[in-house]
């Protein structure tokens, strides 16, 4: 009887842990929606860099990346807010900024990443990628969403609005239940 009880208790603990992660991330994401300034987020990447984003040249495969640039002040201001948001939780987590691309509703791009290099969605090195359905939902509904698509990962996606009330970005507050401190050092 006792071993069974212990097993049940252990299982309950194991299930409770993700809830604890999700709860804290959700609260941080809620704060992120309040704290992040959508108008400022829009200023991070320069119009010139956005213009190059989809340009390709068979003789210059790094054309878009080589011309990627940001507005330093806007970048730093938003990044610092993201760092503060990630510190709201009691475990290592990152808050990443994602934005849609005007004229390309089927694409999305990560704009700012952070120190643990945690994201459930970013394929290393991508300047932009196919729209992530859950992010599309957040952009369209303005509601937070918890995503546990990759085993061991939890991301809470939250809307970022501008001064007109339009949802212009998504913040991903992400953690890995067992952080891999080597995987992302590339």
């Amino acid at each position, binding site marked *: 009887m006792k071993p069974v009880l212990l097993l049940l208790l252990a299982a309950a603990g194991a299930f409770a842990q993700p809830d604890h992660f999700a709860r804290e991330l959700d609260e941080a994401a809620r704060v992120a929606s309040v704290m992040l300034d959508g108008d400022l987020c829009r200023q991070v990447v320069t119009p010139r860099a956005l213009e190059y984003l989809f340009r390709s040249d068979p003789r210059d495969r790094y054309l878009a990346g080589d011309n990627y640039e940001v507005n330093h002040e806007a970048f730093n201001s938003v990044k610092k807010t993201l760092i503060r948001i990630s510190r709201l939780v009691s475990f290592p987590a990152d808050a990443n900024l994602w934005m849609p691309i005007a004229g390309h509703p089927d694409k999305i791009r990560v704009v700012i990443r952070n*120190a643990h290099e945690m994201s459930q969605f970013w394929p290393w090195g991508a300047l932009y990628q196919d729209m992530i359905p859950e992010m599309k939902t957040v952009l369209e509904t303005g509601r937070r969403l918890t995503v546990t698509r990759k085993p061991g990962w939890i991301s809470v996606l939250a809307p970022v609005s501008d001064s007109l009330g339009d949802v212009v970005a998504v913040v991903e507050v992400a953690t890995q239940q067992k952080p891999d401190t080597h995987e992302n050092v*590339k």
Partner: protein
Amino acid sequence: MKLSILLASALLCAQAAQLEVWPAHLCTGPDGAVVAADRAAAKPASLAYPAARAGYVSFQVVATLRAPGEYSLELAAAPASGLQVDVFREWYHRLNRPQAYYPDALVPAAMPYHSRLPEPDNRIADQKSQAFWIDVWISREARPGEYPVSLRLKSAEGDSEVSVPIRVLAAVIPDRDVVTIDHNTYGSSWIGGLYPREQERQGGDFYRSDAFFRLIHAYHRIFYEHRGAFHQLGYGHAGQVGPEFAPALEGSGRNKRIASWELFDRHYGPLFDGTAFAATRRGPSPIPYAYLPINPEWPASYLWWGEPGYEAEFVNVVSEMERHFREKGWTATRMEMFFNHKKRYMGFPWDGDEVRFPEDNRYFLEYGRLLRKAVPPDSPVRFVFRADVSWTMEHQTKDLAGVVNLWCAGGGILSWYPEMARTVKRRGDTVWFYGAPPGMSQVSAKIAESPLRAWLWGIDGYVHWQTVEAGPDPWFASDGGGLTLVYSGERFGIEGPIPCIRLKIQRDAVQDLALLDSFKSRRPLADLRSEAARRFNGSRPEDWWSQRPAIADRPAMEWTEAEMSQASAPLQQMLRKTAPDAWSNVHAFIMQLAEEAK
């Protein structure tokens, strides 16, 4: 009658097992024929092996059987005193492109070596020949004279023996290299990937285990033994630091400090004091260079960038590092503050690596100021500020003079600026250039090109930007090996890296250059350079530079890839013609000088 004797002899020869000697620069395939890349050079009529002391001389032997069967290879006699012989079996990699077999990885073969053809693990159905790489180490104490190195092939088809005369010269290869050949890599996760069995043995603690640190040290050792350096960058593009690359930190703001040196010291202690190299033929020596973990997110949090807390955190921790290094006596290694991040990876707003936007230089100035504040001016610890530069190097070397003092420059663009290289060298900075290793299907001498170029240019070294990424299946579906110069030995029961032919040829070239440069005391350096270039490919030293192109006067932002390629085209065209025996010709010149030196 005579005809029948001749025919019988021919038949006997055709049936006999054969052991042939080949020079290091002519690689052969599993059919025993020279690989396509090296066919442009003829096999020398006579093979002579003059060799300086405190170095290696290399050649290959190829064992051929007419029919599948067992064989053994052995040293026919013990090497003479002062000589040591290492034998490696050459692995034939099946390349995806071109579809062909090329030898590259070298599997240590203990003598006597027993196996069969086809070699069971290499899985080449019609394999008739097996090549072996022979390294002969000639110690500093070896007595000049001629010593044979003899090898014997035994098989059911008969025996075959070769004897290679090694002529040990009085000349001694200097310990110090005239060019640093660096082998770069990123992080440590690749180690787990290359050693899955070892990782499994260690369980979840692999990255804190002694086995893990032994592997790291083994990588340093193999490059050191091949007269190279090894770099592992310990952080990612958004600032994630691998735990073994940095001391653990605690606190914030003025209270930020180092909490533990445990992993850092296990990693770097034996490298900085040289004990990791105690059992090597070159002897113990601290590593010459190491990346520090400093990046925009470490040790100071980027949260405080531009505020007093950033400076406080940076200076506190870097000052502690300086004290720790000083107290440990780690003063031989150049500790590099180096920024590798690019803004395209969305971690930070500026490029640390290959600055293209001139406004990014202000960050370098600020970090230079912080480093000066953290490190006492009279510190014996050798902190250096390294920058990897390309588009804007001409401006950066002016704008960051006195701030950055280790320049790692893209080779194509650096070739436009000989005067810039000279100026930077004159003020005492270190200059390297970077590129990638040639793939195994390129001519064998290609790997010697970059060390030679660095020496002809009068700069300090060359960096292979990535040297451990052998691809998903290097053994049976190789991508050509253009990003690796060592392989995991795990499939052969070796928990550590094994070398390759290209690494061996590069080592031989680097030791040759060290010896050649030492002759400048009796012949003008310019003459030595001229003759080396002529022997290599019939060029002149000035042919190794490009003309400064018109685009250099325009902002780098406006340059196109096509314009940049065009600007370096004549140099690239010249280097496309490198012959398989190019280095062998330079080596012959150096040996000639060495013989004259006695």
